């Protein structure tokens, strides 16, 4: 099946080298949920979002709770069909399962099959990607070493601590050697060494030239790791640009920029 790729253009952003390929292209995305109760009006989670994310960049997708970050990510991962608009990954419509062949995804909170060991879980996901057996075994060894779970590879996942579960999540996201990583709150609930480890892995992936899209409420972490960020609020894209450029433009740190853009604190009532 041939899928026509959308025309790629570059954004006039100094953080984006000219001629860069858009890995993720979101065009006029609208996500609307039906009202749950009788007569309840539909909720519009994302209102006409346009966004390009380019190869090799670490992109932070920020917004307060309920801003539409998760809805956007759900569309990118094919969990939720767009109400209007479209999204493409490497030029392939995200509604096609093949669009996810080069993606690694780490959900914010999840558990993995507790009746499997770490290596059985990774073997299962690797087989879904149709990785050849010999290559798969070496990938399993590599990712388990990367996330420091090599010693626990034969233990059932139900015996893992929360930090270990988050690390096995990262390992499964890396099993197919992805070109694009989508990480939803990757350091949520981790202790400081765990956070540091995840941050090191993201930095390493970035230096290897992979594209990383992640959402986080840890703005210090975003400032350290990301090349560019987008802030979304009430379903609308408020700002997109390089971290350094925004800090220079607003003359304040990222946390203050974020609070200013989302209108916090709200203006005092007369």
């Amino acid at each position, binding site marked *: 099946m041939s899928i026509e790729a959308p025309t790629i253009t570059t954004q006039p952003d100094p953080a984006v080298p000219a001629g860069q390929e858009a890995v993720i292209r979101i065009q006029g995305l609208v996500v609307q949920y039906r009202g749950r109760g009788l007569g309840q009006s539909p909720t519009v989670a994302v209102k006409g979002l346009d966004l390009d994310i380019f190869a090799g960049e670490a992109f932070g997708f920020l917004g307060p709770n309920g801003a539409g970050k998760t809805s956007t990510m759900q569309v990118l*991962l*094919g*969990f*939720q*069909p767009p109400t209007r608009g479209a999204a493409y990954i490497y030029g392939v419509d995200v509604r096609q*399962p*093949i*669009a*996810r*062949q080069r*993606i690694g*995804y*780490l*959900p914010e*909170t*999840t*558990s*993995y*099959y507790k*009746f*499997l060991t770490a290596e*059985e879980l990774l073997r*299962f*996901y690797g*087989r*879904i*990607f*149709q990785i050849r057996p010999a290559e798969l075994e070496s990938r399993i060894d590599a990712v388990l070493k990367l996330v420091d779970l090599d010693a626990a590879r034969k233990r059932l996942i139900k015996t893992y601590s929360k930090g270990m579960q988050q690390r096995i*999540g990262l390992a*499964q*996201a890396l099993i*197919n050697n992805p070109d694009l990583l*989508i990480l939803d709150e990757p350091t949520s609930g981790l202790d400081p060494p765990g956070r540091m480890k995840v941050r090191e892995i993201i930095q390493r992936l970035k230096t290897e030239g992979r594209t990383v899209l992640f959402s986080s409420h840890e703005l210090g972490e975003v400032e350290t790791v990301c090349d560019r960020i987008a802030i979304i609020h009430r379903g609308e894209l408020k700002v997109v640009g390089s971290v350094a450029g925004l800090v220079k433009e607003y003359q304040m740190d990222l946390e203050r920029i974020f609070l200013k853009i989302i209108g916090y604190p709200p203006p005092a009532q007369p």
Partner: protein
Amino acid sequence: MNAIFCLAGIVIKELYRRKDFYVLFVITAVITLMMSTVSFFHQAGIVRYLKDICLLLIWISSLVIAIVTTARQIPAECESRTILPLLAKPVSRWQVVAGKFTGCWLACGLALAVFYLFFGAVCAAKEGHLALPQYFQAFWLQWAMLAVVISMALLGSVVFSAPSANATICFTVVAAILIVGAYLQKLAALQPPLAAWLLTLLYFTIPHLEWFYAVRERLIFDQDLIGWGDCALATAYAAAYVALILCAAWLVFRRKPLTA
């Protein structure tokens, strides 16, 4: 096909790492062994009753394994959110439905084979012979019937979010079909026109699981084999229902939100 068999492998692994199957097998085995060692009134034909009860236990156990295993598959994936990393891979929702079905059906087939091996061994010890083709036919047709039950439970699992509600409804529907399925047309003849029409429609719509149940009596009474052509027709009948019900399950699941 690769993703379907990967998913099926996970379902089989889960069943054999849980205790459900072992508990049911031990209960069936203990009851059968106890009954086979007791001599009831010194009657030679008592082995027929033993076979009857043992086969009933196998039918009940296999239905419990099929429905309970299938009913929890997709709801458990959604509740624990294991469905998210799974669907973030190049896997479509119809592959998830087909993989879950294949896994449950193969797992139930393995469990059923163990039950039949045990049953055959006990009966051979009591009767001194083993009618292997009859046992194979009974096993095959029961497995084909379980395919229909599994597809029904899978459809229920994407409609009802609670596995317990789905399992209860599935057991009720299967029991109703087995008990009254054959009498619906006779019942329709006694009803006023509208009710008669509805009952006739129901008769021609439901999968007639009771046709498969009848094969059990052939084992108990040592009757001749069913023609292999009829056996193939019955298999095709089950396959047609499985295809229809799985299509319905996919249609529901393809638009279903993955998390609450």
